[in-house]
C-alpha cells in the first residue's frame, strides 16, 4: 500500500516537473532571447519595466540558470508577478480559486448523484420506460453545449421568473461564501445545475454499463442466494464493484475543472480560474497564463492522485500492487 502510494506520488511529481519544463520552453525559450521580457511585460509596457523583468528573471544568464530560477520560484510558492495589472499572480489566483472551487464542490455531488442513481435504475430495469427516459434525457443534455444550457437556465429560471415576480434565483455573479453562505449557494445554484446536467449524462451511461456487467457476476448471485434484500444487493454488492470506472471519470472531470470551468464561468459571470485564464489570454497577460497553467496542472495531478488512493480504498486487490 505504501509502495503503491509512493509510486503514485513520485509519478505525480514527475508530471508536474514536465509541465514546468514545457511551460518554461514555451514562454521563456519560445519568444527568442530578446523578446521574453517584452512578452511577459504585457502590451504598452515602458522600457524600464522590460529591463526590470529581464533583471528579475535573470534573462541575461544561460537558459538552465533561468529555468533553475523559474523552478525555485515555483517551489517557493511564487507564481510570478503580473506587470500588466501590477499585482502578484498569487493574489489573482488566490481570488479566483475559491470561485472555481465553489463551483466544483456544489456541482460534483449533483452530477454524481444524478448520474449514478439514474444509471443504477437503468441497469436494474434495462429497456424499461425509465431506462429509455434517462437515456434520452442524458443524450439531450450530453449534446447540449454548456453555453446554450447556461443561457437557457438564466433566461427561464432567472429572467422569466424574476419578471413575473418570482425571484428565486439571483442575477449571475458571485457572492463569497465568507460573506453570506446562503447568498453564495443561491448565486451558484444555476451554474451548478448547468454544469451538473451536462456532465451527469456521461455518468448515467457509464454507471449503466458498469452495473449491467456487475449484475451478471457470480458474486451478485451469491448475495441473492444468501437472502440479501434486493436493494442491498444492488447498492452494497453490485454498485460497490461497479464504482471503479465512475471514480476514474470523476477524477478526470474534477481535475480538468480545477483549471476552470471556462464556459460556465463566462456564462454566469463567475470570476474563477477559467474566467481569469480567458481574460489573461485576451490581454496576452503571460504571467497570469503561466500561473493558471501551473495551478490547473497541479489540480489534475492532485485529482488523479486522489483517484488512485480511492482505488486502493475501494478495491483491496489494488493494494497489493
Amino acid at each position, binding site marked *: 500500500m505504501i509502495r503503491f502510494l509512493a509510486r503514485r506520488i513520485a509519478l505525480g511529481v514527475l508530471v508536474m516537473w514536465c509541465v514546468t519544463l514545457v511551460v518554461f520552453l514555451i514562454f521563456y525559450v519560445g519568444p527568442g532571447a530578446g523578446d521574453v521580457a517584452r512578452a511577459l511585460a504585457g502590451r504598452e509596457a515602458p522600457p524600464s519595466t522590460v529591463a526590470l523583468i529581464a533583471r528579475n528573471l535573470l534573462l541575461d544568464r544561460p537558459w538552465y540558470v533561468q529555468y533553475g530560477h523559474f523552478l525555485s520560484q515555483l517551489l517557493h510558492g511564487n507564481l510570478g508577478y503580473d506587470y500588466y495589472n501590477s499585482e502578484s499572480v498569487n493574489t489573482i489566483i488566490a481570488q479566483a480559486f475559491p470561485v472555481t472551487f465553489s463551483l466544483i464542490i456544489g456541482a460534483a455531488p449533483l452530477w454524481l448523484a444524478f448520474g449514478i442513481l439514474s444509471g443504477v435504475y437503468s441497469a436494474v430495469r434495462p429497456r424499461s420506460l425509465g431506462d429509455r427516459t434517462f437515456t434520452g434525457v442524458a443524450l439531450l443534455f450530453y449534446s447540449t453545449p454548456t453555453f446554450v444550457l447556461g443561457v437557457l437556465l438564466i433566461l427561464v429560471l432567472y429572467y422569466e421568473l424574476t419578471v413575473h415576480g418570482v425571484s428565486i434565483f439571483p442575477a449571475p455573479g458571485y457572492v463569497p461564501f465568507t460573506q453570506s453562505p446562503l447568498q453564495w449557494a443561491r448565486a451558484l445554484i444555476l451554474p451548478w445545475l448547468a454544469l451538473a446536467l451536462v456532465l451527469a449524462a456521461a455518468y448515467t451511461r457509464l454507471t449503466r454499463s458498469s452495473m449491467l456487467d456487475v449484475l451478471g457476476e457470480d*458474486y451478485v448471485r*451469491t448475495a441473492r442466494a444468501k*437472502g440479501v434484500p434486493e436493494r442491498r444487493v444492488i447498492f452494497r454488492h453490485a454498485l460497490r464493484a461497479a464504482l471503479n470506472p465512475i471514480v476514474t471519470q470523476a477524477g478526470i472531470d474534477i481535475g480538468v475543472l480545477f483549471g476552470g470551468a471556462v464556459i460556465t464561468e463566462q456564462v454566469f459571470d463567475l470570476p474563477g480560474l477559467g474566467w481569469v485564464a480567458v481574460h489573461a489570454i485576451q490581454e496576452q497577460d503571460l504571467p497570469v497564463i503561466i500561473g493558471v497553467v501551473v495551478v490547473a496542472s497541479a489540480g489534475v495531478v492532485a485529482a488523479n492522485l486522489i483517484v488512485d488512493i480511492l482505488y486502493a480504498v475501494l478495491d*483491496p486487490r489494488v493494494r497489493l500492487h
Partner: protein
Amino acid sequence: MDNLWVRFHTPDGVVQAVRGVSFAVEPGETLGIVGESGSGKTLATQAAFGLAAGARVEGRAVFDRRDLLEMTVRDRREILGSQVGMVFQNPLSSLHPMYRVGWQLSEAIRIHDRSMSRRAAHARVVELLSLVGIPQPERRIDDFPHQFSGGMRQRAMIAMAIALGPALLIADEPTTAVDVTIQAQILQVLKQLKEELGIAIVMITHDLGVIAQLADRVVVLYAGKVMEQGSVRDLFYEHHHPYTEGLLRSLPAAETERGQLVPIEGQPPSPIDPPPGCPFAPRCRYRMDRCVVEQPRLEPVGGHRGHDSACFLPKDRRPSDDRIAVEAAKGDDSG
C-alpha cells in the same frame, strides 16, 4: 419439484430450458442431478428460488410444504440462505472481491438473524470456517477472497451456505472449477456435512464419479427433461435409459471392448422448438420410428421402487452391440 417448466423469451423464440421436471429430496438425503451442459440442471434449481433472471417459471417447487413459486419475494428470501444454502460452480468469482471473507459470511448470518451481535456472528464465522477445514480461521477471517486459494474459497462458500444450519444444501457443480486434489477435499467436506449435520444435499454435476461417491439417488436430465431416475445402484448397474447408458459408456472408468471411451455422437436438440418426440432420439442408437413423433413418459422400470425411465424400448428387447454394428455396416453399403 413438480412439473417445473422454465422458459425464456428471447428475440429468436421461446427457449424451453426446463420442460416439466419433477423430483424430490427427502430430509438427509443426497440427490444427484446429472446432465450435460444446457440440460437445465442448474436452471431447474435456481429458477425455483427466483435466481434465474428473466425466466418464466411454471409448476410447483415445494419446500417444507410451501410452494416457493407462490410465495412473496420476501418469504422466499427468508428461506434462501437460512433454510436453503447454495454453493456455485466457480469459487473464484462467487465471493465478492472487495469484501473480507469473514464479512461476507457474517452478512449471511446477520441478514437472517438480526438479534445476533457482531461478536457472536464473528465467533460463529470462525467456527464455520474451521468446520469446513480452513486452517487458522481466526486469522483467515479478515482475508480478502484473493488471498484464498480456489479450494479455500469453495470451502468458504460452503461455510456461507451452511451458516444458519439449513435443511437443504444445493451444490451446483461445486467441484468442476477446482483441481482434482481439491475436488476430493470438497467432496469430503460435503460428505461430512451430510453425515454429521444430516443436511439434505442436491448435488448438480456432470461428473458421474462425484455422484457415485456422494449421492443416494440420481436424476438424469437431458434437454430439460428427466430421462431416468433411481438409486445410485439402479443407475450404475441396472440403468435403463439409452442416454444413461451412453453417459456411463463415456466414462473413463468404464472399460469397453476396445478399451476406448465412447462418446455420445451428435448434439443435444435446440431448446427453441424442441422436437416433438423423445429429445434423445436423434442421438439414440436404439431409435424406433415411434420415438421421433411421440414423447415417452417416465415410467417405473426394473425391480426397485423409485426407478423410473422415459424410454419406449424395454431393455431386454434392445439389439446387442454386434447387431447394431452389422446394421450400421449394411446401412453404409446401401447408402
